[in-house]
């Protein structure tokens, strides 16, 4: 018989009579394993904290998204948004599933090429594409999503220089009835900038205008905004057909779909309220399928969703460093994962579950990271069972952005493992060492010596 677990005593205000709106007590289940691999084993093997990515979840989420769109519209193409998570292993799972690459910098572009993505299947977004980047992309026949006129002019110059017809689309920004309206990227639809850019492209005759792109925002809670965006792109595409007899091959609706995470300040958990792939698919494809494109000239629908595809596949296992009580009496727990590797804790209330069994007693707790910085708070208030030093917790849905926006600050960045379809564990990024950091540095000789 297993030894009974020690839990420290707790004194809690008795809440009877008045059930709160979530019921009498919070239902908790420990998360002791991910895809059949024990968390304790993972920590023993790889140390704490540890990012874990589930290949199974990636693939099944992708299939779910694909199904939502392809059963509503015949021509759908996903392009993996590199900035969301550009670990090569992760990118390649998406490429295996058929995703193209969507990159927003020369660095990401090189990464995609190094991963073996055919240049023609790379969509190059973003406001900062250097002349060098553009040259590379044009030579590879990648698709350039033009962000501003200065870029447009550079491409015209390069077209002459390279004697090649670059394949381009413009990014269009627009009012879709949501706030804030993202108008800093691309050309505006309502004030005619978009048409201005399109006219310039068509009149120049130096580019192949293959598509139209928009990306209306991030974590969009209203699918209807996509309907509006789609109809505006359709309007432009049909206008081009009419004015220049030019066919647009694709409409790229960008990304911005919500994951299952709960935004800070949300009244209800994201799992219950956030739109699903089906909601977005419905909004977008209904407009497309009922538009006046002739059946054989229906454009391909490109989607660059990143967050909604990867978020749920990422977990962060962390261990308790210490428990303490704050001056106001509130319980505080310090864990070994800080905001430097959990960037998203600034805007999400991540779901966090203990990795071992516990009793039903719980206490309102603030979760602090290990950094010696006041802002290092993972959750300001969470009802957790009574944890001891050395216990583990699993932070859910951390697949998006954390592994690209993390930084080496005070501590080093941890290991990332991938659990494959056969429950085997692969290290896909090793933990950083002091050499990794110092290799980039050089200390002038006169600063190498000092006496204290």
């Amino acid at each position, binding site marked *: 018989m297993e030894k009974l677990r020690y839990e420290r005593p707790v004194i809690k205000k008795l809440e009877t009579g008045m059930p709160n709106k979530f019921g009498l007590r919070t239902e908790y289940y420990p998360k002791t394993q991910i895809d059949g691999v024990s968390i304790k084993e993972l920590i023993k093997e790889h140390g704490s904290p540890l990012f874990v990515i589930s290949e199974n979840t990636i693939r*099944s989420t992708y*299939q*779910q998204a694909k*199904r939502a769109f*392809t*059963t*509503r*519209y*015949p*021509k759908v*193409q996903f392009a993996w948004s590199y900035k969301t998570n550009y670990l090569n292993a992760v990118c390649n799972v998406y490429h295996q599933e058929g995703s193209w690459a969507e990159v927003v910098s020369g660095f990401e572009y090189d990464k995609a090429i190094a991963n073996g993505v*055919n240049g*023609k*299947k790379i969509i190059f977004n973003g406001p900062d594409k250097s002349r060098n980047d553009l040259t590379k992309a044009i030579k590879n*026949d990648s698709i350039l999503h033009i962000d501003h006129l200065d870029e447009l002019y550079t491409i015209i110059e390069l077209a002459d220089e390279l004697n090649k017809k670059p*394949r381009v689309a413009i990014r269009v920004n627009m009012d879709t009835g949501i706030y804030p309206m993202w108008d800093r990227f691309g050309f505006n639809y309502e004030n005619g900038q978009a048409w201005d850019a399109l006219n310039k492209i068509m009149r120049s005759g130096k580019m*192949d205008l*293959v*598509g139209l792109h928009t990306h209306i925002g991030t974590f969009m809670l209203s699918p209807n905004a996509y309907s509006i965006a789609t109809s505006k792109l359709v309007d432009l595409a049909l206008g081009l057909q009419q004015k220049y007899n030019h066919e647009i*091959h*694709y409409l790229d609706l960008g990304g911005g779909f919500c994951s299952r995470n709960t935004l800070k300040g949300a009244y209800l958990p994201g799992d219950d309220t956030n739109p699903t792939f*089906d909601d977005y698919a*419905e909004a977008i*494809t209904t407009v497309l*399928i*009922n538009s006046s494109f002739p*059946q*054989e000239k229906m454009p*391909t629908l490109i989607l660059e969703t990143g967050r909604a595809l990867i978020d749920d596949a990422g977990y962060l296992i962390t261990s308790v460093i210490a428990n303490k009580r704050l001056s106001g009496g509130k319980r505080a727990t310090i864990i070994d994962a800080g905001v430097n590797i959990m960037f998203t804790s600034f805007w999400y209330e991540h779901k966090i579950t203990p990795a071992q069994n516990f009793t039903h007693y719980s206490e309102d707790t603030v979760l602090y990271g290990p950094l010696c910085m006041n802002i290092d708070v993972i959750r300001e208030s969470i009802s957790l069972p009574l944890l001891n030093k050395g216990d583990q917790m699993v932070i859910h849905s951390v697949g998006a952005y954390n592994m690209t926006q993390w930084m080496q600050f005070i501590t080093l960045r941890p290991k990332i493992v991938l659990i494959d379809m056969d429950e085997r564990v692969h290290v896909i990024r090793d933990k950083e060492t002091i050499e990794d950091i110092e290799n980039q540095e050089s200390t002038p000789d006169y600063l190498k010596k000092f006496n204290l």
Partner: protein
Amino acid sequence: MNKIKNLFPGYLTSIANSYSQIFFSNSKFFAIILIVVSFFDWVAGLSGLLAVTTTNTVAYIFGLNRSNIKAGYYGFNSLLVALSLGVYFQINIEFLIILFFTSILTLFITIALEGVIGKYGIPYLSIPFLIVCWMISLATRQYSHLEVSERGIYMMNEMYKVGGIRLLNIYEWFDQLNLPASIIMYFRSLGAIFFQYSVLAGMLIAVGLVFYSRIAFLLSLLGFFSAFIFYRIIGANLSELSNHYIGFNFILTAIAIGGYFIVSSRYSFLWVILMSPLIVITITSANAILAIWQLPIYSLPFNLVVLLFLYVLKFRERFHHKPELVYLQQNTPEKNLYFQSNNKTRFKNAFYIPFSLPFIGEWRVTQGYNGEYTHKGDWQHALDFEVYDEKGMAFKAQGSNLEDFYCFNKPILSPSGGWVEEIEDDIEDNKVGETNSAKNWGNTIIIRHADGLYSKLCHLKKNSFKVVKGDYVKKGDVLAYCGNSGHSPKPHIHFQLQATPYIGSKTIEYPIGNYLLNTKGRFELKQFEKPNKDDTITAFERNRVLANAFNFIPGKKLCFKVEVNGHPHQDAEWEIEKDIYNQLFISCSKTNSKIYFYTDDVQMYFTRFSGNQKSVLFQFYLSAYKIMFGFYQNMEVKDVFPIHIIRKPWLIFIQDFVASFYIFLKSEYTIRYVSKTDDFNLSQIELAGNYQLKVFGKLFNHSEFKISINNEGLQQILIENTSLNKTVTLTKI
């Protein structure tokens, strides 16, 4: 000569064909033999040539159908008349005048008959010859300036005059050959068709016949000897058969109904045997009647029996293949057989309207024909569809809400063009697990695709219809959305075809035109088949790059740089043209070759090749025989070539002899969809395939080919024949 060519294109062909047409052939070699045979009696030969020339020229100046003139359809009756006159009369100026007007008369009667009996879909055969011959025979008795020839009597003299003793010896030698009487009789009967009652003439014609068609030669033997045996059995006068103007009736009848107008088969052979007694009866009775006016019966029995039989066949309501009429005349019994049997395998489904699946993406058949739940009795031919995920679930989460089901609220499309006949749109969608048996079909749409052919889609979502009653919908238009109304405990759609326009009509069995069966990521193309329960299927999606590459419209030119075994060859320049029957073909004017083809929204296939098989166009025919306009990785499209395109003369020669009973040659076509890069304006598609010749099921010869396509169309075709060590490369110019 060039002047004639310009004035009357196909002049020589029209003359040659007028000769070979007597044996239903258009072989030039056969024509030369026949011309030589006709000149055994030089007056007859000359008269024949003059008559054919006159008739074809008059027909041309008169403005009659040029292809009929060229095919020899108008010339052969005049030829027969002239031959019969030529052997009978001495040549003099009066004779030539009579010959000239006889030819015109024959032409007029031919045209009149074409108009009169042509509308019953039967040929005029040699009836014009019969009529004119009798008319002339009756009329010339009064013309004293015509002199009856004595050449028939002093034939040896004539022959000596022409070729000396040597020719006479050869001629004699053949006549004195120690052959069985029946064989001699057979050769003489063959010769008699050209009014040459000699064994040599018959033998030459027999050689020509074998050259023209092995089946026709077999049939000539069968026809003649079945008559021979019948005469023996009934004890009729064998001298009647040996009479030189009688025996050939059996031979021509045998060729006509054994393989020319009817597809050669064991049934056609049986009918040739069964026809002999009919001919015998006709001969005897007709002889009795015509004897009154001292007229010979010539080919009357052949004409009567063949026309009778062909006409009677048209009244059949059953057993249309026993025997089967030739639908598109290919001018040899072999081609008729090979072409028609090939067409029967290739286009057996042409009769069906090609329905597509009424949804987008991948769905699963949850109840098929004769299903275990509701597809029973009058409603057995129906299909139910749902969407399943890769884990085999039809829903996500708990499946307690309609929205959890993957198929719920998915667009439902029109399976083919038609008019919206009926819509039921006001039935509430059930909660999961509940059914509405009062209105069991739920929200329903019925579309009329043709008279007596309606499709019905049921259990649609309330108020989700995008069309109204009376609308015309195209294939693929959104009709409504998948719901859960009627007798439906969980969202799905019910699809059926029916002959009457009512909700609740009984179903009819009808295949789906094109769809893909997806087994573990492999796509298998299904054409005109019925999906089975638990099949995961996808609607066939057209790929525009493929469709564009094979979109051959009249006027379009295909130009390729050609290399054979790495050495430059003459460039291929082909043009798409259209004939008066509205058939499209790819034409190569240099080699005078053509590929006839057919295109619709999902496929392009070649129907026929004519011309030079050594041409590069023929290689193209082999490599792009059938192209489906949808790209699915590793999808294979298979087809079979007609046998007569095989370029193995001796194999074909053997095959021809037994073809009516057994086919041991098979030439198969396979094309595989290798790779596709869907890069909008820079898309690239690679196809690979092979052509395999099998003898008794064993691989005998094969070619491999690769086709590269991009947005601009066909880029490169590479054909490699490993057995011949020959590589042909076509690169777009």
